[in-house]
């Protein structure tokens, strides 16, 4: 099985990159796919707070940390590497991947590469698509509309969006539905993966006392998100 790298990013902050990354990690865990994650929000690491056992905080702009990620792809136990790219670094990270020859090995089929581009509601997000398009020719490119915070995308003119969307051959749209604010907030406070929250466990694996209603909402929402991942056949990325 060849390794797979999933880059989750956006050039704008606050669009829910880490939330989407968390759903991906939960998805792979639930499907028994050995996965590791890199959190590029050095030195803080929001992702690491939720998935400490599988996440390492790195500075993706430095060569030693780039080596830590990409030189270990073939040897790592984890077959899927998920990288949560800090806001504003998506284009520069893709540029760096091109420069180190990573995109060439993707082209040769030695590594599966997918980009989850999280879109914000502004026109600036459409410009990001155009900017990103230059680097993702051989990647699986997913445009993610994240509605978790009830973001509406109506300020986009559908024709304009389509013109950007079609610039990337094979681009696939994913929609992450809204999650009740209090449920979202309680998972944040609990600092555990969504799956752990649904199972009513704390970070140490012991029984917790989360609201049944909130767990129900999170379970329902996570099921819908995973439904989207099933629809785009995400597990095939790790199966090749």
């Amino acid at each position, binding site marked *: 099985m060849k390794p797979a790298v999933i880059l989750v990013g956006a050039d704008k902050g606050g669009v829910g990159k880490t939330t989407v990354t968390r759903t991906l990690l939960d998805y792979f865990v639930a499907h028994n796919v050995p996965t590791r994650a890199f959190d590029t929000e050095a030195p803080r690491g929001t992702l690491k707070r939720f998935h400490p056992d599988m996440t390492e905080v790195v500075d993706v702009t430095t060569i030693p940390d780039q080596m830590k990620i990409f030189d270990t792809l073939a040897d790592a136990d984890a077959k899927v590497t998920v990288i949560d790219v800090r806001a504003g670094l998506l284009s520069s990270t893709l540029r760096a991947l091109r420069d180190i020859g990573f995109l060439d090995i993707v082209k040769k089929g030695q590594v599966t590469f997918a980009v989850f581009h999280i879109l914000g509601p502004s026109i600036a997000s459409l410009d990001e698509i155009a900017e990103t398009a230059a680097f993702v020719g051989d990647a699986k490119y997913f445009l993610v509309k994240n509605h978790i915070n009830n973001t509406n995308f109506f300020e986009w003119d559908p024709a304009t969006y389509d013109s950007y969307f079609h610039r990337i051959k094979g681009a696939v749209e994913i929609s992450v539905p809204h999650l*009740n*604010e*209090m*449920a979202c907030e309680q998972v944040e406070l609990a600092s555990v993966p969504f799956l752990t929250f649904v199972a009513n466990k704390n970070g140490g694996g012991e029984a917790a006392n989360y*609201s*049944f*209603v*909130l*767990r*129900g*909402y999170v*379970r*329902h929402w996570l099921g819908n998100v995973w439904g989207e991942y099933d629809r785009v056949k995400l597990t095939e990325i790790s199966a090749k």
Partner: protein
Amino acid sequence: MPGGVTSRTPLFIVCSPQARVGRTLTARLLLDFFLMEDRPVAAFDFDAEPPALIDFLPLHTSNARIADIEGQMALFDRLIVPDRVTKIVDLAPTSLQKFFSVMREIGFIDDARRRGIEPVALFIAAPDAVSQRVYAALQMSLPEMVLVPVYNEAVAQGQRARKNYPLSNRASVPIQIPALPPYLYRYLEKPPFSFAGFRGTPPQDIPLEAYMELLRWMRRVFVEFRELELRLLLNDVRLSLQHDAG
């Protein structure tokens, strides 16, 4: 009875999309039924307009709301507790849709069953088309829930209504609330009238003859409730045997 069988604790949701069809009266009778047998019971009331369930039995009833997340948590987090206390929800028409929609979304029924709780919707089988549509929609959207039509003879004659309320499963045999002579309703509808409150002592403000008539009527209703409990128990036994065989 097989050794592994234990009956689930019922959660009764008394509901109708229409007002003034006997919903709160049914919830009161059910609450009185458990109180008179000294069985642990708690009720939840959505009605804002008196006389509501809470006006009749305030010591055993809490206010509930469903529109906001805090209300949903206060209600469902209590309903899901496996404390062997029978719970009764008097679900107002304005809250019906949201209640069942939340119930479905949070996966309440499966979880409740895992905790030994059996949600049972007692649906007032009124003769109007809206009630029939909502009943059919509930059957579709929550097929796993025990949905019991309640024929309140004061609002509908049984035979005609029955064909409009097809039964969902074996436990869903209908309940019949017999009609009372109209003059007796005035005693019933005045809070804090409660059969459980009298404990066999006739109240001073009701003529003895009327009181005895009310008691006879109540006993007929309680027989219906006992039969429902028995059917729920038999359903548990049947499911348990199926599980053991599988």
